[in-house]
């Protein structure tokens, strides 16, 4: 009862607080910009996400953030730091621990043209709300024959974390990418995080935005263009992170970093690898992937998720369909092990792709594995 009373008091005073916050909201976005550009040319993924949210909320009062611990606590991973102070409790909404309920509420709000950003503390918890992501958000535009669109973003950390066991370590890219009506984005760098999140919020359709907990603290160089508040990346376009001519490596999220490391190792051995950062899992940029494979004639796909029916399987199919005649070697697919994530650190390491796995696969594709190297 006491708890309820306390909440009631908070709700009662909220209308008075709104006035104060609306004043703050008028503050120009450029102030945030200057802070970033004056500091350095590096930015963490966390700051990239935070600044993207901040700028989009500032630009459009219809954008609001909701989720568990996003307000007073500033986000379980501090992605929403400072937003409550700036936009107030009506736009940075602390919800009860009720994924099905608040995700559905987000969808209902989006029916009316608001632009909710729903944060899942981790995407593992989106399982409690998957009905609303798929049945309510993804299908409404189609079921209503275009009368009701759902401009909503579902975002949060996805994929293998460290030492948290089977239920908290899983990649949902392939799951959501299987659903028509959803757009699925997965950023790697700070540039990706800023450009894709801003694109997702501006998009008129439901977007599943898969971040990675282990990347939040990583810094990446960012250009002045990226720091501009109008910066936005196209949905459905991959980025060639590193050009090469011998083998194509596709990856997304944290695995892009691994692929780049693998490419460095391969370069020392005389193999020039082209690394494609998918950025968008759905729609999949078949053009970029196929153009690259037609150039290198070899393909290695990398993902953290389970192998069967995974993102790699889809990429492989697209290449078989479009560029079969160009392949000089079987496609290599690197994925997480086909097991629930183990807890023990040594087993956990074995369950997710490592840089050396990528190196080995690329060498196999180039017929340069140790045993064959001599004869080649």
């Amino acid at each position, binding site marked *: 009862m006491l708890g309820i009373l306390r*909440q*009631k*008091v908070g*709700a*009662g005073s909220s209308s008075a607080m*709104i006035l104060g916050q*609306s004043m703050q909201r008028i503050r120009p976005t450029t102030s945030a910009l200057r802070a970033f550009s004056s500091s350095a040319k590096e930015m963490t993924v966390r700051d990239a996400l935070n600044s993207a949210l901040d700028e989009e909320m500032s630009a459009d009062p*219809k954008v*609001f953030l909701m989720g568990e611990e996003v307000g007073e606590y500033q986000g379980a991973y501090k992605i929403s730091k400072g937003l409550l102070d700036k936009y107030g409790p*009506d736009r940075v909404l602390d919800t*009860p621990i*009720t994924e*099905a*309920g*608040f995700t*559905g*509420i987000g*969808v*209902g*709000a*989006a*029916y*009316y043209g*608001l632009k909710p950003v729903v944060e899942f503390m981790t995407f593992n918890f989106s399982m409690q709300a998957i*009905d*609303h992501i798929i049945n*309510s958000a993804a299908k*409404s*535009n*189609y*079921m*209503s*024959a*275009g*009368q*009701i*669109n759902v*401009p909503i973003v579902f975002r949060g950390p996805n994929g293998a974390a460290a030492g948290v066991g089977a239920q908290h370590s899983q990649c949902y890219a392939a799951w959501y990418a299987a659903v*028509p*009506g959803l*757009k699925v984005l997965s950023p790697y760098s700070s540039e990706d995080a800023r*450009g894709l999140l801003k694109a997702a919020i501006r*998009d*008129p*359709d439901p977007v599943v935005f898969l971040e990675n907990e282990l990347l939040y603290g990583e810094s990446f160089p960012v250009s002045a*263009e*990226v720091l*501009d508040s109008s*910066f*936005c*990346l*196209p*949905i*459905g*376009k*991959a*980025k060639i992170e590193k050009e090469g001519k011998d083998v194509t490596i596709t990856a997304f999220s944290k695995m892009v970093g691994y692929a780049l490391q693998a490419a460095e190792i391969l370069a020392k051995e005389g193999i020039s690898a082209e690394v494609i950062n998918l950025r968008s899992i759905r*729609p*999949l*940029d078949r053009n970029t992937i196929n153009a690259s494979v037609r150039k290198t004639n070899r393909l290695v796909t990398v993902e953290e998720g389970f192998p069967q029916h995974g993102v790699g399987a889809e990429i492989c199919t697209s290449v078989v369909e479009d560029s079969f005649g160009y392949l000089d070697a079987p496609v290599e697919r690197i994925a997480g092990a086909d097991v629930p994530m183990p807890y023990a650190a040594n087993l956990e390491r074995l369950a997710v792709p490592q840089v050396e796995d990528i190196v080995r696969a690329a060498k196999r594709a180039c017929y340069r594995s140790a045993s064959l190297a001599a004869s080649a």
Partner: protein
Amino acid sequence: MSFSATNLAQPLQLNTATPRSNDKPSLLLPKTSSFLGSTRNFRPTSLSANPSHSNAHRRSAVVAVSEAVKEKKLHASTNLLITKEEGLELYEDMVLGRSFEDMCAQMYYRGKMFGFVHLYNGQEAVSTGFIKLTKKEDSVVSTYRDHVHSLSKGVPAREVMSELFGKATGCCRGQGGSMHMFSKEYNVLGGFAFIGEGIPVATGAAFSSRYRREVLKQADCDHVTLAFFGDGTANNGQFFECLNMAALWKLPIVFVVENNLWAIGMSHLRATSDPEIWKKGPAFGMPGVHVDGMDVLKVREVAKEAIGRARRGEGPTLVECETYRFRGHSLADPDELRDPAEKAHYAARDPITALKKYILENNLATEQELKAIHKKIDELVEDAVEFADESPLPPRSQLLENVFADPKGFGIGPDGSYRCEDPKFTQGTAHV
């Protein structure tokens, strides 16, 4: 705050025994009689043991108005509950609901519609009693039993019938179907096919009304959302999650339980620990009301209060309408588990017959005028069928449309390639 029609009731303490020991046997022996409301007296409730002891969080008593309204009707015949125009509007809407659904059954058996078709016969008083009090801007979120809610909200019968026929002229161009009626124009936000699924979406619609008023400063946004769902949903977690958040955030929503006493073949009494669903309102700090869902005037009285309360920004209300479906769960349900005596009991309480009786007894309209309504509706429904039958099927090209609001969309384009490869798919500023 209080329900005007409830002023005859004495607020009672929740923790005292309510005077309904005579109802106990029916709870234990479900088949012996109707189990809720119809034989019951007041259902007063209050979170506050002492109503005069004011507390920001506590609410004053809210009770079932069914008996109160009945009292009014009996003793104040000069003070009628409705005008002639209102009476005829309600009557016409209920007759439309009934005739439309009867026609659906015919068309289903003739193979004109397919899949699951859930009919609303018997429950018309709920849809009519509530929805006829809404504005066009108010929203309705329904379940798989959604045809009649759409009709009451104003969606033309032609469009609903055509949707059921799977034709391009349907309200969703044949892409929604029986369980998924949407109308942006009339603010029908969908039939939802899963139990409990519509409640969060409805709560979200109510959330956006509040957001518009308080954050976007659209002072005139007083839109109310009605969430319709059944007794089975009241056992689903999403119901509780949303009662909590709606009360917590004082959202303009009315949760309307259409308690028709049965799932498919599972009795409400076998599914629910405490079958009185209205009681769950006070548990979350909102009024809970029980009303006879077979009496459109009583439903309307309760609806008026609940909708008004939501519109004034005073928060949500949970209304349990005790009703009954006259047909099986869907047209595929042989309906063998419900007791024929129970069915007969409710058939005798047909809401359309009851309203007709009220109208005639109070000289609100003549037999002729009511007959004219039946004739008009018969023609309307016939016309809807003809329209649907003659309408074209959706063209092949429609298959890939409307997956996204994004004008470019994606999927497979006319040339067989992925549409997402279209330039400027969702444009960014960066050069990739």
